[in-house]
């Protein structure tokens, strides 16, 4: 943390700075962190606790293979296949498995459906639980104190910040991922998409809509 940051206390105007984002670290800070990380990495390798090729492999999987494109396919399938949607809402892990997704941090999936009456949004107030097989690793904002603290007590103001207005007569359901159950929001299918193919529908579905902070926009 820089001195500039430490000495700047007037955070009540326009909100606090965001040290929680590594992106906001200075070059010096990133260098110091690289060194600290290098030390612990050398140690783990030297002690035979981890292997370099395995470290590279797991980083590669989460950087390149898994991500919200998986969840988008699940959503698109549910939109076009009523029987799949039924299975998805009844046993999400099994239904998602039909598309080949599952495993670590998605062992126990639950899918919650947005409707005109109910808007769902997912959080992990205690840490950062997130459905990795279908969404990949979470964005920094999902892990930030600002989101984790406020979405449970004041979900409507959070949704507003994401540009999502929710009518007073719609119930907002916040899902706090306190155990090993992982939640995926099934967004409402936008109007005007009747002629789209499943693949075209999947392209409309963005990560934030499956967390529940946005809706899927019409094309």
């Amino acid at each position: 943390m820089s001195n500039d940051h430490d000495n700047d206390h007037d955070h009540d105007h326009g909100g606090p700075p965001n040290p929680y984002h590594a992106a906001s670290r200075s070059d010096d800070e990133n260098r110091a962190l690289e060194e600290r990380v290098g030390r612990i990495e050398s140690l783990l390798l030297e002690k035979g606790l981890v292997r370099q090729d395995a470290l590279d492999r797991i980083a590669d999987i989460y950087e390149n293979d898994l991500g919200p494109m998986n969840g988008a396919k699940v959503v698109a399938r549910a939109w076009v296949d009523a029987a799949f949607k039924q299975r998805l809402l009844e046993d999400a892990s099994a239904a998602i498995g039909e598309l080949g997704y599952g495993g670590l941090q998605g062992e126990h999936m639950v899918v919650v459906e947005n409707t005109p009456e109910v808007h769902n949004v997912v959080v992990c107030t205690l840490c950062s639980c997130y459905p990795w097989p279908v969404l990949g690793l979470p964005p920094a904002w999902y892990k930030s104190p600002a989101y984790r603290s406020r979405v449970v007590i004041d979900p409507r103001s959070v949704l507003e910040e994401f540009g999502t207005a929710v009518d007073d007569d719609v119930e907002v359901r916040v899902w706090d991922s306190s155990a090993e159950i992982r939640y995926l929001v099934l967004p409402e299918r936008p109007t005007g998409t009747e002629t789209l193919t499943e693949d075209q529908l999947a392209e409309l579905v963005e990560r934030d809509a499956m967390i529940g902070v946005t809706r899927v926009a019409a094309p």
Partner: protein
Amino acid sequence: MNGIHDLGGMTCFGPIVREDDEPVFHSDWERRVFAMNMLSMGQFGSLDQARHAIERMDPAAYLSTSYYEHWLAGIEILGRDSGLLMDAEIASGRSEHTSTPSRPPLDPEFVDAMVRSGSPSTRPVSRRPTFDVGDSVRARNLDVRGHTRLPRYVRGKRGVVSAVHGTHVFPDTSAHGLGENPQPLYNVRFEADELWGDNLARRDCVHIDLWEDYLEASPVEGRSHEQ
């Protein structure tokens, strides 16, 4: 432990800062911390132990550092707790004592298998759930000095069981090497006015997963717990 990580319900962190086109990792060190944490956890302890390590960070540091810095701190704390790493080693980056890992290091094929199959927290234990969907329950107001997944904001509050998830490992014991103590896990729905304010009138609710030991029956009339 009533820790800084238990953030639900605070209203002092300002707006949510988002990043356009956010990369999976912002820098190489984030990538390396992610990989190390995933692969060292099996050597150092369970997922519950790893979570509890991060919870024990200095609160000011917890709030002023980024997510993968938490993971880095967690690796250091858990490595030390496990006896496999020493302070001096963490400071120098050089091994200064020989320690025997509990298992050989994972190879890439095992990594693939681990990611594919995951690590379910369910256990084949037939413990009949005390509560059923629709039951009124109260989250107990428990004084827990170690790890718990019962956040402060639901303690003492009344809700309704909305799902029964089967029998899952209990983090309060698992995080402290006190056994898996598998027990029924429920999803419980709490109305916004019950949680956040009797002056609220909003059609909102929070659904949260709570283990059986966190719950007690709550007559619909809402009698508070009495000893």
